[in-house]
């Protein structure tokens, strides 16, 4: 049962990644990332063997659902409302192509996960490979999207991957550090959101093409 649940959640995470890659609308992406946050908060309950005591299971779960599924999507929702973001910002790689790339990445991580040195640590290769695919997909979103909000969401995908890995292969972090990690993430996103509103005020756009004056 627990094994099946892990498979299901990994699968849903992969599908939500593909959804994020394929959706052009930032609001839709927001739903996707909030859904991912909910999925993540189930994970701590499925890896009880890594945890000592109920508190160390419940705290990460509660933190993840409040921060990743509620607070961060709420911040982003507010900023999307404020900046009225344009959806039609052509990404560097088109949506269908990036979904196909995402599919291949996911498949690839299924294939190769056993060859990586940490596969023996995890009881569920499914989860680990979903996490590994998320790392790459998050980076793909960050590097191919021209919309700063989409980039933030890519960063969140990437962070979620860290969370999944953390939950599924290691657990030795003291609780206060896990809380610190979550608060860092929250503060980071908050700062990014503030930056996005400033970008919007200054450039009247949240596209990154206007953020390309500094180079060399």
């Amino acid at each position, binding site marked *: 049962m627990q094994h099946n649940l892990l498979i299901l959640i990994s699968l849903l995470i992969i599908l939500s990644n593909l959804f994020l890659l394929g959706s052009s*609308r930032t*609001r*839709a992406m927001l*739903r996707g990332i909030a859904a991912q946050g909910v999925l993540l908060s189930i994970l701590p309950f499925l890896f009880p063997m890594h945890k000592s005591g109920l508190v160390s299971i419940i705290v990460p779960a509660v933190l993840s659902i409040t921060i990743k599924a509620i607070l961060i999507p709420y911040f982003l929702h507010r900023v999307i409302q404020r900046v009225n973001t344009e*959806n*039609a910002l052509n990404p560097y790689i088109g949506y269908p192509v990036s979904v196909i790339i995402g599919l291949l990445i996911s498949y690839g991580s299924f294939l190769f996960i056993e060859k990586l040195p940490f596969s023996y640590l995890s009881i569920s290769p499914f989860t680990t490979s979903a996490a590994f695919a998320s790392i790459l997909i998050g980076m793909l979103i960050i590097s191919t999207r021209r919309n700063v909000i989409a980039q933030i969401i890519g960063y969140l995908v990437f962070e979620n991957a860290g969370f999944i890995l953390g939950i599924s292969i290691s657990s030795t972090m003291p609780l206060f550090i896990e809380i610190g990690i979550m608060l860092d993430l929250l503060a980071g996103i908050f700062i990014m959101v503030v930056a996005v509103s400033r970008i919007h005020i200054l450039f009247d756009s949240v596209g990154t093409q206007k953020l390309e004056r500094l180079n060399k």
Partner: protein
Amino acid sequence: MIKFKLSSLPIFSESEFREKALGLTSSGCRISSFFASAVEGKRKLYLVLSDDEAGTVQVITTQPAAVPGNSGELSFHTLTTENPAFHLFEREIFEQSGIRPEGHPWLKPVRYPDRRPAETDFFRVEGSEIHQVAVGPVHAGIIEPGHFRFQCHGETVYHLETAHGFQHRGIETNLIGGPRPADLCKIEVTAGDSSIAHSTAYCRILEVLSETAPPARAEAIRAIALELERCANHIGDLGALAGDIGYLPTSSYCGRIRGDFLNMSALICGNRFGRGVIQPGGTGFDLSDKIKEQLLARLSAGRDDFISAVSLLWDSPTVLARFESTGTVSQEASEQIGMVGPAARASGCGRDIRQNHPSGIYRTDCPKIAVSDKGDVFSRAWVRWLEVKESIDFIEKLLQGLPSGDVFIDGAQKPAADTLAVSLVEGWRGEVCHTAITGTDGRFSSYKIVDPSFHNWFGLALALRDEQISDFPVCNKSFNLSYCGFDL
């Protein structure tokens, strides 16, 4: 509403008129009406310009010159080539009076294909892969007749031309010689869903010509009726928009809620479309306290229903995806062709007669004007959503602060002689402009109605440019223009 003594209106020479017309339209004035009229046998052109910034209305006139060699025919140099907003007005002038706008690029009849010798074919895009799709005048739904001709390349529309005139009733000619008591009934069915707007415009003409001011209570009731009409139609349209994209919940709920709002009109006057409410000199019905309470209760229930039904639309990503970026009219295009009403406000042109040229109760109080800037189907729906909420609040405010006193004052039936009067009303679809000219006997020698549809049909054509032909129904519904208001 404003009136001018005919003798005080200077008659410009054609070149002066041209210069003035182009100068004023390029400096912020909008064409509200442009027509030809024969007073004392002399055919003149009257151009009614409204300045939204200043809130003023100007009328300039000219006497077109005779065509050399043909003593009966008059002509003037077309203004369309300089300002596209004149396009349809000039075609109408030619059709109605025979005064030829020389050099007009597309001098096709507007309503009567056989009245003047003219081009009657549709504009064609050439090319072996271009095909035409003809829709109407008989449609699959229960809607008015009108013909649409698409020039398509595959699914993409390159051009849409609309053809009207399938239900002209000759309202304008019928009104000449008035005012007569029965005329009000004709006015009320000019565009059946805008009875209040048109009858208000008509009554204001009579009132300004006879210098009678309706009592304050009547003005408040008029505004209530006008806003109820706006709510009912906007709600109906939002539902129809949802229906067009197959989103049933909102569609069926809005159908019912529209009925609720129509019934509120019926509560006032016994007629769901508000026939008979507006009378020259006031209103035909008073609001008893009981009716007032009932209206307030129904309004608050109606608002809750409306908000919950339409919120479903904005919460549904598939709906937003369908609405957004579909049928976009840019602000620039909207300004250029002189669009009015919610369609113009959806493109970012914040013009609203209630605010820019207020009359009646709107002079002291006015609902907030809703503006959106994308110009797509979503914006047009969103503007309506905002307007309905504003209107409901406004009606409640009016009901609660209803002035006391009479609702009718006599004496509006005797217009002054030799006068031109203009009245502007913001109907739910946009600016309704009535212009009347009285002769020496104090009877109408000319009466001109411009329904907002007249301004906006070309906007629909622009919205369809480079869009999918399958988007036509939803674009059409987002404008929801009147056929009979156009055909008159």
